[in-house]
């Protein structure tokens, strides 16, 4: 029975891999959920067709990263999966229902004539619900979970509070920013002008919520406070908020200029900064603040087996994902489906 435990820090490697998968999911499904959030606000039906067409070839693969995040968590940290899923039962189910309504809308909308409006709203509210629930799951994470033994021992609605509602709304705006800047990149004409205006409007809200979350996290949790406001950590971490502020300024200027690609790329970087900030704050908890990633790790042999496959297959997956984005490069049209 092979295992790399003796010479590799498997739990740490897997934490990084799962973290990367979830982050890729947030970025990739983030922009197409964001387009769903903005959908009814678009000026014309042709704009909406374009928005949909700009993500139609990608959404399915984007959502697969969520399955990898969920499945990977089950594989590498089964204890965390077994605690978090019951603890987050209601928001997870609601998120899944949202994803169903928006996912089927892609195919149904292309085929619909009479009920097209129905699928427009199915796409919008499904995306909105999924984004909101993902944000609320983050909010519940910040507050931690009540554990006894090896299982969740809290109530069904522990995840629901003013704070998680706030983080839910924050993520909706965050995804809307990704969606709007994606549209700046992938469309032109009226759609692009509208996307530019929407992006700068949304940008202000994203900045506002990022500040709130950054201030509130250390206030809620003493551990986070000690981490960020102790010497010399304070100075090591200081570049992050400074850099983030710089990114906001640059996106703001680019949205007023002619740059088409940069707002999207810089918005991705804003998400990266936020994600790193959260990751640093939660370290080393995988179920805050009861189970560390080492305690939740699967057996060495299990983590080893999947690691072999991942090392070989993940680069392949990334290559053909990149190939697909390259293949469908350029501006989206409002015409036709396939």
């Amino acid at each position, binding site marked *: *029975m092979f295992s790399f435990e003796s010479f590799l820090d498997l739990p740490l490697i897997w934490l990084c891999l799962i973290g990367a998968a979830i982050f890729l999911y947030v970025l990739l499904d983030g922009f197409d959920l964001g387009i769903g959030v903005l959908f009814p606000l678009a000026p*014309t039906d042709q*704009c909406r067709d*374009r928005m949909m*067409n*700009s993500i139609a*070839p*990608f959404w*399915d*693969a984007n959502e*697969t990263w969520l*399955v*990898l995040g*969920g*499945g990977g968590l*089950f594989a*590498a940290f*089964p204890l965390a*999966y*077994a*605690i978090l*899923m*019951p603890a987050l*039962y209601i928001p*997870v*189910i609601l998120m*899944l229902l949202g*994803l*169903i*309504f928006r*996912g*089927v809308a892609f195919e*149904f909308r292309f*085929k*619909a004539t009479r009920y097209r409006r129905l699928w427009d709203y199915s796409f919008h509210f499904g995306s909105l619900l999924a984004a909101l629930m993902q944000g609320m799951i983050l909010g519940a994470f910040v507050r931690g979970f009540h554990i006894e033994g*090896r*299982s*969740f021992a809290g109530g069904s609605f522990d995840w629901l509070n003013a704070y998680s509602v706030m983080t839910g709304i924050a993520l909706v705006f965050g995804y809307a920013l990704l969606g709007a800047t994606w549209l700046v990149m992938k469309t*032109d*004409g*009226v*759609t692009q002008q509208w996307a530019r205006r929407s992006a700068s409007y949304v940008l202000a809200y994203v900045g506002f919520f990022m500040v709130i979350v950054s201030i509130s996290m250390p206030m809620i949790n003493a551990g986070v406070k000690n981490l960020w406001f102790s010497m010399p950590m304070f100075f090591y971490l200081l570049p992050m908020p400074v850099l983030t502020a710089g990114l906001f300024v640059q996106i703001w200027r680019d949205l007023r200029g002619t740059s088409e690609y940069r707002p999207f790329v810089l918005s991705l970087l804003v998400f990266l900064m936020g994600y790193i900030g959260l990751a640093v704050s939660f370290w080393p908890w995988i179920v805050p603040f009861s189970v560390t990633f080492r305690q939740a790790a*699967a*057996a060495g042999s*299990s983590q080893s*087996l999947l690691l072999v*496959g991942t090392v070989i*297959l993940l680069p392949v*997956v990334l290559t*053909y994902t990149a190939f*697909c984005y390259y*293949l*469908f490069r*350029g*501006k989206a*049209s*409002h*015409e036709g*489906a*396939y």
Partner: protein
Amino acid sequence: MIENFDPVLLARIQFAFTVSFHILFPAFTIGLASWLAVLEWRWLSTGESSYAQTYRMWVKIFAVTFGMGVVSGVVMSFQFGTNWAAFSDKAGNILGPLLGYEVLTAFFLEASFLGVMLFGWNRVSPRMHFASTIIVAVGTVTSAFWILSANSWMQTPQGYRIGEAGLVYAVNWLEVIFNPSFPYRFVHMVTAAYLTTAFVVGGIGAFYLVSGRHQKCARVMFGMAMIMAIFVSPLQFFLGDQHGLNTLKHQPAKVAAMEGLWETRIGAPLNLFGWPDQEAEKTKYAIEIPKLSSLILTHDLNGKVVGLKAWPKEDRPPVWIVFWCFRIMVGLGVLMILTGLAALVLYLKKQLFEARWFHYWCMAMTPAGFLAVLAGWFVTEVGRQPYIIYGVMRATEAVSPVGAPPMAMSFTAFVLTYGFIFGAGTYYILKLIRKGPDSEEEVYGAHGVKKPPLLTGLVSEKGGPNV
């Protein structure tokens, strides 16, 4: 009131509902993807346009079905944790990596190349497009490989040990992946998926033949479907028998429930029909064929077949579900074989495309594959109860600490959502069927768009209208 419901029962019903709903889509898309690959190959090698038209009609149906399969599949990847947290904790070491491999080797492949398959017509060469179709087809079968390996391990676990805190650890991965029931279940299920698709395609082809529309494409559909019915239906009967013998060896209680046998007997009869009564421990109103059960199961008229009473009451599966679902599955299988035989006779009499009664019969057989797949899964999943991991962990020990009210609410939400989505999906598929294959000149786009659809290059768009 809801608080008084049994959370285990609710978790079971909810899981049974979401997984039964989900399996309908893979059962169809596994076969459809492979068939589309064959169609495209025929088209590229013969240049016959009816193959291309048929491909383009069915690829749209594939897209709708695949979309519903994806969204209901994402649900499944979370249901292990939401409904069966204790099981996830205990068996995560084994099942996690198997599901992880499914995502890495199959899901990404399917999802990425489906985009090329649907939207890539003018962006890649015909060869590359053909390659994408094959990749998607391979992806669907690969996905079946891993998930059936995981399911089979839960039915016939091996290559593991029980360690600290009752957790299951893998000892030999090859033994885990290729556990005793896996090869049988895999072959039986993939063949079932191919047959499901064949009968859907055959039914729709028959519909066009009857209504006198799209004759060329209808012949392609109907002819290819009947080839499957003639050759694969009898093969499936043989594979099913082999799977049954494997079950007898590893899960004899399931087979006893399938047969409705309570007493252990030498030369056991076959209960053709009857009503298994769990309380009375006998099968009422049974129509028996003497010694046939022994003959089928042991290939000996006087072979010994173990009855359900050999197990304590609490270790027996709910018999009537297993008993009746097994008969539904086998009955449908027999009808499929008869369909194949009739097709063969009609073909030899050169009346396959003319015999009106047979076309109506094939239209009636359209859902046969779906029903047989569902019935088969009910047999194998209910038949292994009360265990979630056979002989290792009971379903009652596996449930999440969630409580009845959220389970009941989520169940209701899933029923409403799936009912709505399934209704809409069926409506749009029927619409595509009513429309039929495109005529040759508009073969490129789905909405009469003749130029490259969806995404056009930067240059052409600059000159286009400002939308």
